[in-house]
């Protein structure tokens, strides 16, 4: 286990060093994230323009959802996107061989190899928006609420990671899976709004098929101290199950890779 932590540290230092070769990216990413956020705020403000509410959520509560979404986007750009998109390249160029020949868990290598600092603006802006909106909404930062919020945020990350990893891993069969991960990313845009804002059919889809509800709405409820026990449990269960599925799926996919040539 200790070796994995050492490796992780070396991985991230190496990738930070590599990314800092391109310093202008930071400014571009900051501007892009801020622009995105302003755009989302504007769309959201249209719904609330005449004192209406969105799926029973107040303006401030909806802002918490947007904050969670921005935070997730930031983490995505920092960890998920840079790592998981290279799986496709590894399969296509055959450099996956090098990963498989290392005496370390290949899923760990593929998921944690790179760390890109360009998502940090999103993480900071998202966290700030969550804090501000939760305060405006009158949420009380009780220890239990904070714990539930942290757990649900972690669960949400685990779900997002697993979904993405499974899609990327299917490149072992389809090789050009790049578009599919882009589709996933656009579906996740739905997470900018509380899931109850969508019509019933879509709501079911975003809860049971692509669990967008667990990505932003459930963590936001936990932050606002409105989470119900069953939803928290469901969130945790979905998270555990999806990570387990991703691990199983990877082993399954490797069986096909290792019985073919490249």
């Amino acid at each position: 286990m200790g070796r994995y932590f050492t490796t992780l540290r070396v991985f991230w230092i190496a990738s930070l060093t590599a990314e800092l070769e391109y310093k202008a990216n930071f400014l571009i990413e900051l501007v892009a994230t801020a622009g995105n956020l302003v755009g989302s705020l504007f769309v959201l403000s249209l719904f609330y323009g005449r004192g209406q509410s969105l799926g029973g959520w107040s303006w401030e509560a909806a802002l918490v959802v947007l904050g969670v979404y921005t935070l997730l986007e930031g983490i995505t750009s920092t960890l998920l996107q840079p790592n998981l998109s290279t799986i496709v390249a590894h399969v296509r160029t055959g450099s996956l061989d090098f990963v498989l020949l290392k005496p370390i868990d290949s899923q760990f290598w593929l998921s944690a190899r790179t760390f890109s600092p360009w998502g940090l603006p999103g993480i900071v802006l998202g966290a700030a928006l969550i804090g501000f909106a939760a305060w405006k909404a009158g949420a009380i930062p009780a220890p239990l609420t904070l714990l539930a919020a942290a757990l649900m945020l972690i669960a949400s990350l685990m779900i997002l990671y697993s979904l993405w990893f499974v899609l990327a891993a299917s490149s072992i069969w389809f090789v050009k899976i790049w578009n599919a991960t882009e589709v996933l990313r656009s579906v996740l845009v739905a997470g900018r709004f509380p899931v109850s804002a969508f019509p019933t059919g879509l709501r079911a889809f975003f809860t049971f098929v692509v669990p967008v509800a667990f990505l932003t709405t459930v963590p936001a409820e936990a932050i606002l101290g409105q989470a119900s026990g069953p939803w928290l449990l469901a969130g945790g269960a979905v998270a555990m199950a999806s990570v387990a599925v991703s691990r199983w799926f990877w082993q399954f996919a490797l069986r096909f890779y290792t019985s073919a040539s490249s």
Partner: protein
Amino acid sequence: MAIVRAQGLGKTYRVADKQPGLAGTLRHFVSRRERTIQAVRDVSFSIEPGEFVGFLGANGAGKTTTLKMLTGLIHPTSGTVEVAGSVPHRRQADFLGRITLVMGQKQQLIWDLPPLDSLRVNAAVYGIEPAESRRRIAELAEMLELGDELRRPVRKLSLGQRMKAELLAALLHRPAVLFLDEPTLGLDVNAQARVRSFLADYNRRFGATVLLTSHYMADITALCPRVLLIHEGRLFYDGSLETLTQRLAPCREVRLELHQPMGAEAFASYGEVEAIEGREVRLLIPRERLTEQVGRLLADLAVVDLSVSDPPIEDIIGRLFHQGALA
């Protein structure tokens, strides 16, 4: 006790049987037809620790497939493999720490960073202590004649420097068995020679076992006392390079420079005439009659100069693969 052992190794692939063009693709989409290709069949050999073995074969002969089975990247369809006491495709950490695979056309170094950063990553992955890793890097860098290059981003290195750095990265964990797939691919003659002398040096110094494939016959002749020749998936030859040459080229080439031009019929009794260009003649003479015939040539004809050589091994093996016939 052999360190690499393959017994009746075989690998079949199922590939899509598809006609070219859009129509073919559509037809394939509707009714998928597959056929099986036998890439490797019934290959058996064993390699003792410390041996340096060349692995020859035309493109598509089954070399890479065999290497992938030996390193555990693919499962064999039939037969058994054992490398360094383990079954490769189980990919146990202990086994992976004892082997390495270098592929001339693929790279593991991080493109934007100096090789040293990639080496740090490898040291962590293989669990090598920082002090020990520094010592090994210094030793290997000296053997490879690498210095400042390790501190320059990989993208700014020449192909030769990059390959040497790749070798360093692949050998940092001091593997006992090296699988080298075209490690000199695309390198210029000087860089090839340096990589070659490094490999010989490494093999001697650490007693490592090496299995090398290369399209450059010079690599094989310089490094490999023993060669395995694979043809259409089957092991065709296993033995010394010298015996292979004799077996494949039973004749030697004799070049003559004559005092004055002569017709082809004048040489019929000495050997097979390969070419006649003015006063220069090239003859092929069977090995066992070489001394006798050269003696006769010198006695009978007005010879200005005479030399004897083996036809280049590239030619022999190239011709062999080209004809596709191995008797």
